């Protein structure tokens, strides 16, 4: 089979040229599907980054009442909070550490708070609570609030959680769209190959009578599908790679505000380019495999 690889390629290119229009239209179908795949990967990669950074910031801050500051009381509180369903982690943060993060959050100017260090520290001990899933944050916060010894409970706010939900559903609809487009592309390619098979029906019939193996008969068609796939991947790779570079430069690496850092283009775009070519070849070969296998099925 490998020995005749040159022949298989020659036959494949005959087919491609003979049905030039069909070749182009099914390559265009792949292009469209892959363009969405590429954009989708970029978006979902950035969504993942953003979600990650939001999830970092979505943390419940629990201040401990001034009358519950003994080590025993703190331990009991920690256990009570940990027992609430949906909790990922509960970290104790002493007054001193709270002051540290206050100072840090003010940056340069923070140093003026240094004078509060020690017994005069007006801050409270606190717990920093992470939840498993951003959606739980409100419920968990309410539960914590009811525990005796908790002074106040604060968290990043419902807006962030909502945003996360929106991003999640963007991603899910993206999956559905991409899968749908790929199915359509496979279907279109299998139609093109069907045409190619039809115009070689005589040849195939003779190959069968003289005892050519199915794998041999199939090979040029698989190559034909693969080449259609590769042709179809050029445009979407160009657009996603070029477009993302351009966008990244244009926006200076940020989306809307400093809060959302865009994913750096490299090496991400290398991966996407490779993934798109491979996906295109697989889609092309799948489409032609479907048709050839159907045509070659024994009817005895």
């Amino acid at each position: 089979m490998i020995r005749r690889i040159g022949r298989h390629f020659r036959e494949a290119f005959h087919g491609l040229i003979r049905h030039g229009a069909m070749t182009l239209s099914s390559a265009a179908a792949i292009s469209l599907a892959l363009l969405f795949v590429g954009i989708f990967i970029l978006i979902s990669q950035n969504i993942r980054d953003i979600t990650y950074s939001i999830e970092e910031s979505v943390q419940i801050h629990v201040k401990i009442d001034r009358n519950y500051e003994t080590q025993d009381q703190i331990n009991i509180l920690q256990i009570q909070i940990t027992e609430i369903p949906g909790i990922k982690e509960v970290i104790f943060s002493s007054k001193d550490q709270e002051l540290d993060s206050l100072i840090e959050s003010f940056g340069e100017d923070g140093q003026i708070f240094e004078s509060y260090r020690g017994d005069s520290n007006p801050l409270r001990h606190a717990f920093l609570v992470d939840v498993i899933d951003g959606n739980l944050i409100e419920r968990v916060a309410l539960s914590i609030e009811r525990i005796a010894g908790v002074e106040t409970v604060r968290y990043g706010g419902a807006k962030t959680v909502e945003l996360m939900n929106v991003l999640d559903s963007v991603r899910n609809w993206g999956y559905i769209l991409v899968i749908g487009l790929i199915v359509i592309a496979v279907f279109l390619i299998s139609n093109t190959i069907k045409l190619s098979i039809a115009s070689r029906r005589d040849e195939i019939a003779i190959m069968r009578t003289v005892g050519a193996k199915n794998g041999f008969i199939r090979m040029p068609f698989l190559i034909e599908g693969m080449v259609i796939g590769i042709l179809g991947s050029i445009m979407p790779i160009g657009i996603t790679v070029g477009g993302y570079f351009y966008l990244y430069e244009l926006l200076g690496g940020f989306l809307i505000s400093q809060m959302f850092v865009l994913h750096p283009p490299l090496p991400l775009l290398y991966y996407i380019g490779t993934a798109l070519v491979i996906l295109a070849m697989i889609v092309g070969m799948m489409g032609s495999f479907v048709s050839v296998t159907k045509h070659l099925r024994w009817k005895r």
Partner: protein
Amino acid sequence: MRNVSKTYQNGVNALYNINLTIEQGEFVYIIGPTGSGKSTLIKLLDGEEIPSKGLVEVVGINIGKLRHSKVPVYRRNIGVVFQDFKLLEKKTVFENVYFALEVINMPKLKARQRVREVLQLVGLSEKANSYPHELSGGQQQRTAIARAIANRPKLLICDEPTGNLDPQKSNDIIQLLEKINEEEKTTILMVTHDVNIVNQFRRRTIALQEGHIVADLSEGGYIRND
């Protein structure tokens, strides 16, 4: 072939309880009116159909039990020639014959050598670079025969090879088949309607009617009774 029956899926009984043995190297005619099951018999032999009952064995292989993936390799044991030649119009005589060897992965040099050999045998060496439409019917059929025997099959099946040819050309084809039978030791099974041929070139003749063998004459010859 033992106790072979074939019923198609639509319920047509094409063959009933056929018992038939053909030795290696024989030359056999199969005759019978249309619809008598001749083509069905061929399809059973080349693995295109499986018998509903009974055993079909060729070169020691049970064809009914043959796995689909093994059919192609089995088919390299048999050559088939059709009434309508089935040549590829865009290929020359040489390429048509070469094609049959190429697609079973015969090495190039060996294949080219063999093509020249069989073209010589069928007397078409001069026409190697002609296209099928430049040839007479007889020459086209000889190309088809060359293609069928290129891989040295043990059995050559011809389904009405002379159906589209005038009597003179038909005789040439039969003489060619006899030559192949002698020189290449190929078993030949020829389906025909043509009683003249059967009577002129006397060979073992098997007559089919409505799926039954009604005569098996080892001296050949057949009296028309319809």
